[in-house]
């Protein structure tokens, strides 16, 4: 579902990503770990078709990127650092607008369902600018799931969420993985990666320096080992 080979991205003379080869299969939850500036967001933005790679191959939901980016977009949901909302519009208006862009049939039912799932239904008519950071993050998650994407790319999805929000999100993600949705999420939290992901990959200085699969290998040990390797190379 997500497959990259030798992926690289250069900004000016600096390589933000170098030689990243990664495979995430259907129904897999993979955590992308790494320190600040490691290239996690750059990788997610390339996979989300918001940025083009300088070098390398990239496939998403069986579409070749960037050549088939427009077709791939219908099948992917991307949660960015920012909520990507119009702050003066209400939660419902924002979702209705995105539902239109994704040509969702019977959007009001889908929107109401998602707002209830994320505990925002009672405040659906209020402008997004009046929402707390956590509420905006929950609404952003509702937007990401609106069109039932086959691939989910989440950049720090737990950030800003309270405990209840975290529990809801984890339940939703596990439920989607059971329905064979491919999930790749970037996080700083080792415990979150350990509890949610089947596979952990570590980026440092733009390079994929380590990966673990299965519960047998602790993500924290992989992470620490990866950072040691990265520091040694740097």
């Amino acid at each position, binding site marked *: 579902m997500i497959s990259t080979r030798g992926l690289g991205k250069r900004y000016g003379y600096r390589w933000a990503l170098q030689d990243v080869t990664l495979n995430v299969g259907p129904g897999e939850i993979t955590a992308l770990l790494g320190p600040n500036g490691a290239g996690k967001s750059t990788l997610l*933005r390339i996979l*989300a*078709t*918001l*940025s*083009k790679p300088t070098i390398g191959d990239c496939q998403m939901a069986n579409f070749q990127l960037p050549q088939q980016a*427009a*077709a791939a*977009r*219908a099948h*992917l949901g*991307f949660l*960015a*650092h*920012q*909520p*990507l*909302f*119009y*702050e*003066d*519009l209400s939660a419902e*208006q924002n979702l209705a*607008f*995105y539902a*239109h*862009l*994704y*040509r969702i049939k019977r959007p009001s039912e889908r929107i109401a369902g998602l707002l209830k799932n994320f505990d925002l239904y009672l405040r659906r008519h209020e*402008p997004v600018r009046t929402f707390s950071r956590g509420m905006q993050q929950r609404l952003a998650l509702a*937007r990401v799931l609106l069109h039932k994407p086959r691939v989910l790319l989440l950049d720090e999805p737990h950030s800003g969420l309270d405990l209840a929000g975290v529990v809801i999100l984890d339940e939703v993600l596990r439920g989607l993985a059971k329905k064979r949705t491919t999930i790749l999420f970037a996080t700083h939290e080792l415990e979150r990666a350990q509890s949610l992901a089947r596979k952990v990959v570590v980026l440092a200085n733009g390079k994929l320096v380590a990966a673990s699969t299965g519960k047998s290998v602790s993500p924290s040990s992989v992470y620490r080992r990866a950072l040691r390797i990265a520091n040694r190379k740097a």
Partner: protein
Amino acid sequence: MVPYLATVIAILRKDLAVEWRSRQLLAAMLIFTLLVILIFNFALELDARVRSEVSAGVLWATFAFAGTLGLNRSMAIEKEGKALDGLLLAPVDRSVIYMGKTLANLSFMLAVALFTLPIYSVLYNVDLLNGGFLLVLLLGSWGYSAIGTILSAMAIQARSRELLLPVLLFPLVIPVLVAAVRASSFFLQDLELIYIWPSLNLLIAYGLIIPAMGFMFFDLIVEE
């Protein structure tokens, strides 16, 4: 074609809804336009004949400056909260974003004109209810919005985008403004059509070529 148009209209409606909720853009444009018209009114103490000759120039200068405010704000709402990324993630041809934003900018310019023209007509004692003049207003505003939307999308990436937009916009919009001023002035003076056609042709050509460029290249403009 129908889904394409429906998406263009969805983007237009979204921009109008944002403006209806915030009421920032139109208020700023209207106040600015009124102030400029008043300043010109007191600065140019001219006789009736000269007034009718210069009124087209004053009007278009006012619309051009007010339009810059609108273009800046129109893209700023996409920058806030990175909403533009939300649009770019949608499985739609990216030219719909350009068309929707251009129509929204045109709507704001025409709304300002609708409010301003009666006041202007009274202050300058000029009859602006002229079919030809209103056609020029529409064509000129369309050309201005078409080029302005492309440039504001380019400027949005820059840190000093409010300064950059007028610097980029005014040199490129000069053909529209000159043609619009000439055609408006000739219509208001009831000159024969033979004098007006060259300016009208320029407005029509500009109004076709620039949107076609936006349609073809907007994807590259908004690309990271």
